[in-house]
């Protein structure tokens, strides 16, 4: 078990190296001088020379890459010139908001989509299966920024139920413990703030959830149907085992693995979806930060945000890998 986890962790190192190389490559290959790219347009010759030295841009390319990796490992990508603050400090401040939004969206997606897919599989070919597949294919086809706008139009514009932007009302704040506003509000004992935070979360989280429901329910359906083709299921049916017991004992454990796989693959969609949803709902996470950084050509901040997203994605995939071992007994003890 421990062996497997260490192998996976070590396996992530070459990927991290390649990814940092790609980000470094983007910086180097971009038109114009990298030092000028990293500074605002009105930078003086002196500042350009300074940056060139700080990033080692006057040294050979492999030394530059080494320096870049070194900077990245120390979480130092210089200063954002829009915010006049260290890049990783800014990202650190915004990260909890992105994680909180993604967390609620993912939990909601799983809670809705997995049962939906199971119901469809168990009623294969019936009307309810057709309804689920219509929901699923529409969910995959609708662009999330449009869904978000429609939700705003209906729930904030028409019904006036939920706010359409931000994370908490202006002037309201909670002492930060976990960084998740909802959890912090509960820790501080303020149930009102907790409810308010949930209201602000509702529409962005729902938008992200709707984008994921389609694929998760479709894969769940396929996985449960596949699991039903196994001989031990035929035996169970033949010996007259109750339907509920078969589903619980024979179908769900076997369907769990493809479902976890697809949830793992969906993390990519979750992250890219969150960038767009954050922009639609002015959610103060890394996505809006990246968007603002790009629009003012704040390159250190852009590089930092891209690197953070990628590292986050690799880390989440690693977690999923480890989670496999927990749910699939066949993987335990193997030196896979």
């Amino acid at each position, binding site marked *: 078990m421990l062996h497997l986890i260490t192998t996976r962790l070590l396996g992530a190192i*070459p*990927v*991290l190296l*390649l*990814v940092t*190389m*790609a*980000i470094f490559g*983007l*910086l180097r*290959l*971009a*038109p114009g001088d990298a030092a000028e*790219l990293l500074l605002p347009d009105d930078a003086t010759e002196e500042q350009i020379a300074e940056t060139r030295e700080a990033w080692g841009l006057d040294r050979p390319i492999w030394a530059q890459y080494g320096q870049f990796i070194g900077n990245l490992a120390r979480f130092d990508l210089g200063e954002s010139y829009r915010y006049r603050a260290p890049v990783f400090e800014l990202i650190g401040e915004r990260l909890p908001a992105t994680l909180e939004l993604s967390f609620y969206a993912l939990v909601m997606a799983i809670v809705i989509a997995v049962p939906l897919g199971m119901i469809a599989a*168990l009623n*294969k*070919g019936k009307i309810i299966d057709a309804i689920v597949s219509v929901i699923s*294919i*529409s969910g*995959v*086809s*609708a*662009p999330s*920024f*449009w869904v978000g*706008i*429609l939700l*705003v*139009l209906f729930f904030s*514009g028409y019904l006036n139920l939920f706010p359409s932007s931000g994370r908490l009302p202006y002037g309201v704040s909670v002492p930060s413990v976990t960084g998740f506003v909802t959890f912090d509000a509960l820790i501080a004992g303020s149930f009102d703030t907790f409810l308010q935070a949930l209201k602000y979360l509702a529409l962005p989280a729902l938008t992200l959830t709707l984008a994921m429901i389609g694929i998760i329910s479709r894969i769940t359906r396929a996985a449960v*149907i*596949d699991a*039903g*083709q196994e001989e031990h*299921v*035929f035996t169970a*049916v033949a010996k007259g085992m109750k*339907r509920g017991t*078969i589903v619980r004992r024979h*179908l769900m454990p076997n369907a769990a693995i493809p479902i976890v796989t697809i949830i793992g693959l969906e*993390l*990519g*969609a979750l*992250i*890219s979806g969150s*960038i*767009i949803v954050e*922009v*639609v709902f002015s959610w103060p996470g890394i996505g809006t930060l*990246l*968007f603002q950084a*790009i*629009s003012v050509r704040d*390159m250190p901040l*852009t590089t930092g945000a*891209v690197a953070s*997203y*990628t590292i986050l*994605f*690799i880390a989440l995939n690693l977690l999923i890998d480890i989670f496999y071992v927990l749910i699939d007994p066949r993987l335990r003890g193997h030196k896979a």
Partner: protein
Amino acid sequence: MKFDFLNLKFIIGAFLLGFVLFLALFGNLITPFTANKQSLMDSLLPPLSGGHILGTDHLGRDILARMISGARVSLAIAASVVVISGVVGVIVGALSGYLRGTWDLVTQKIVESFWAFPPILLAIAILAFFGQSLTNVILALTIQRWIPYSRMSRAQAMVLRSLAYVESSRVMGGGLAWVMRRHILPNLMASAIIVGTFSMATAILAEASLSFLGLGVPPQIATWGGMLAEGRSYITRAWWLAVMPGVGIFITVLSLNLLGDWLRDQYDPKKTLNLI
């Protein structure tokens, strides 16, 4: 291969896609207006008023004309992306699976590192660093999209290389180019078309997302994503500005997903039993 053309997925998918293609090709015959013609006197007209079938935007531009321009941009970009990434992906993957060895090892590492970026993020990064242009949008969308083709082709080529007729062709002196052209690539076409149909759907979504974020083609060209971004600020006063382009994206992507599903069903040899 027997096709079941009466399938509902095929009928709806083909109808919707046909409709979008018709608008893109012959849309100019329906509306007398052009995409960028401003008329501030006629701004924010609701649909079906003043001769504007879908209404006008904040600058009095005809929404239908802009939708037609958007359809052209979306379809042209997505089609280029799908063709380029398909050709690159199938060839790279087929060579990997057929040759194995160093070539395979190197391409697998490249695949792995491209795949380690969340989708769209790499595209955003490329456009942020390299600036916006039609070529860069196509490049940004292609850079990750060839991977599914290459994975599929690699897996199938590995199976094909050990089949008797491929081996005999090699024994008879068939060179790499001959075996690839005659025996490997034709066998990958069906799967490539299925991957391509779904890939076209995601490419349209991705292009719209980039335009929405203001990172797509230059803003003077009307795109669905760009129209949506502009229409957002008028959502409470004039809903059609943001709703219409979304409908365009939705039905195009839906039609491709339906057709992709239908194609996959046609080629799926696995028929499942229905016990519980």
